[in-house]
Structures are given as C-alpha cells and as structure tokens.
C-alpha cells in the first residue's frame, strides 16, 4: 500500500515530502521528551514491575538503569525459573562474599587427639627445646616388624596427622632409610638415643647420604644407650628392668 504512492509521487513533491518528514521527526522528539520527563517522575514514586515473559533485562551503561529488550527468539530458560532474588537465602550475596573457613586444621586436631591422647608424640616432635631435632639418633619400635629400627633423624615432615620422620642407618654395610608416621598406632615407641652435639643448620640432612658426611652405623650409640638405660631402670623399678632385660636379650639374639 505504501509503495505505490511513493512510486507515483512526482519529483516536484520531494520538497514537500521532506518537510513532512522533518515535522514528523520533531513531533516524535517532543513526544519522547514528554515521556522522559514523565518517567523520571514515576520512577521516583513507584517502580514499574519488570515484564517477565520473553524479556531479558539489560543494564544501561550510562544511566545504570535496567531497560528491557524483547527477545528475538524464545529464551531457552523457562520463564517460570526463579530469579536470583527469589532463590533461598543460603545463596544470598553477603554470605557468598565471606571466605569459607578451612575445615582441615580442625579435622587434623581431632584426629591427632584421637591417635595421640597423651600428647607425647606431638611433644616429641614439637618445635621446642626438649623435642627431638634433626641430627639426633632415634629408635623406633614397631609393633609388627620384630626389631626396632634406629637411625639418624634426617628429616621431620610436619603435616598434621601425617607427620612423619625419616631415619637413616647402615644395616649390614648398606644404607637404609625409613619413613615412619609418628601418629601410627603400629609405631609403639620412639625414643631419643643420642642428642646431636650441635644444632643442625639445615632442616633436612640429606647430605648425610654422601659418603663424606655419612654417620654410617649407629648401633654402637644404641648399644651404649641401652646399657645405661638398663642400669637406670634396675634402680628405678623392677617392671622397667624386666623390659630392659628383654631388650638386652633381643640384642644378644641378634
């Protein structure tokens, strides 16, 4: 309908038509201005409810107001789906902003309390004066394997419940290293056989693997320690003496 009059219109009418168009434009602008003023007034008093169906909301960059636009296609998301505001309060922004607290330390503390109720194991490898330090000679008595393993403490790996120690010794002229978990129930006892003369300047004495620095066999130190312990325990109590005697017997059998 519109196309036919355009075709039929003579060239002389161009000026007329232009004028017409200008007028139309001006009138539209006027209408727009009037609408704008009215909207500013209305937003102050009451916000119009956002249309829900087939509509997605866009935040205007300059005005920071939400304006709506119609979807070209049907949205994939069902319009009945709850919006962010309608979701339960667990997912509300203030709680999300709070950083989640780490549950691991509490869990470790609980497990350590369970595995080491007296706190003796924790104390033996704490960062205190009396505690075992790298360079000391330790003896670990294992419940399953028969003989206690003794060696130089090379490393302490502090990882909560997984805290472990690395001992190094020479058995039958071959270097042997063993990791023990200190909170393991199978580890019946850990004893300090000999203190290091000096505080080690390293956290890990891995240089002891080299022949130059190797402490080699520590059985002499262990033997001397067992002797002294036997003497003291006889004086202390009969029960402990029996234990010492048993140890000595094991030594003889070896």
């Amino acid at each position, binding site marked *: 309908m519109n196309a036919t009059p355009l075709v039929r219109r003579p060239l002389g009418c161009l000026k007329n038509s232009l004028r017409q168009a200008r007028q139309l434009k001006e009138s539209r602008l006027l209408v727009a201005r009037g609408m704008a003023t009215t909207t500013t007034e209305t937003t102050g008093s009451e916000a119009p409810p956002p249309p829900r169906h087939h509509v997605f909301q866009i935040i205007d960059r300059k005005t920071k107001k939400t304006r709506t636009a119609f979807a070209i296609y049907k949205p994939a998301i069902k319009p009945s789906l709850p919006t962010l505001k309608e979701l339960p309060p667990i997912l509300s922004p203030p709680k999300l902003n709070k950083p989640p607290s780490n549950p691991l330390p509490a869990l470790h503390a609980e497990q350590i309390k369970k595995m080491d109720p007296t706190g003796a194991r924790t104390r033996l490898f704490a960062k205190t004066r009396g505690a075992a330090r790298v360079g000391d000679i330790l003896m670990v008595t294992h419940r399953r394997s028969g003989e206690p393993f003794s060696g130089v403490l090379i490393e302490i790996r502090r990882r909560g419940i997984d805290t472990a120690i690395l001992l190094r010794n020479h058995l*039958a002229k071959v270097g*042997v290293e*063993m*990791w023990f978990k200190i909170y393991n129930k199978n580890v019946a006892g850990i004893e300090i056989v000999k203190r290091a003369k000096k505080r080690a300047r390293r956290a890990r004495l891995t240089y002891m693997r080299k022949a130059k620095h190797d402490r080699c066999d520590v059985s002499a130190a262990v033997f001397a320690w067992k002797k002294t312990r036997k003497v003291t325990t006889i004086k202390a109590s009969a029960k402990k003496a029996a234990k010492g005697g048993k140890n000595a017997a094991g030594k003889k059998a070896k």
Partner: protein
Amino acid sequence: MIQLKTMLNCIDNSGAAIVECIQVVGQKRHASIGDRIVCVVQKQRGAGAEGMAAASNAMKVKRGDIRHAVVVRTRQMVNRRDGSVIRFDDNACVLINKAGDPVGTRVNGIVGQELRKKKWSKILSMAPMQA
C-alpha cells in the same frame, strides 16, 4: 625401579657380583622388591688378574650367563601398608633358577621385608637380616 639395563649387585654366593637387568618378568613396567627379573652376569666375584679359570671352579655362574633373579633391595622408595616407607642405598638381587630356587647357598646382606609378602621364604631364611 629396576628396568632394562639397570645394574644390580648380586648378594649371594653364586659367583656373580654385578648383573644387568634385561627383562622384568610379568607384565610390569619396573621391578620392585620381590619381583622377578632376567639378567646377564656382567662381573664375576673374585675374578682376579690371573684369569677367571681358577676362580670360576667354585662359581656356579659365569660372565655372560643369562639367569633369573629376585630383586631384594631398591634405591626407589617402597611404600608399606602402614604408611612407612623404606629405601636402600643400592639395588640388589639374588639369582634363582627357573623353578624359583636360589642358585647360591648364602645371602650376604639385608633384604626387604616385601619378600615375605611375595612368598620368597627361601631367600628370607637365607638372609641374615630383613628390614
């Protein structure tokens, strides 16, 4: 982690001193303690300067022999069930025949306890120590 070309100490009195792994028996990538390997004897024990003929009289194996062996120590750490870990300073093995009986009559040196789990009781009983 014993694999192709790994050199191991032989710690029995079969006559081999150093052997080279040429095959890990079973579908395994690396052999650990208690695993069976095929190896070549590279050095004989007590092979002096005057020649091997005199020395090899008592020896059961010679240089170049291909034998089976059981790994008894590894430099690679071996995890145990309870979280403890063991590591030796060398790789060592004990020669066996195809039936699984040790070639030598003696084992000099410590062996890993994993042998018990893999049922090498003969080698365990011959060893002076186990760790």
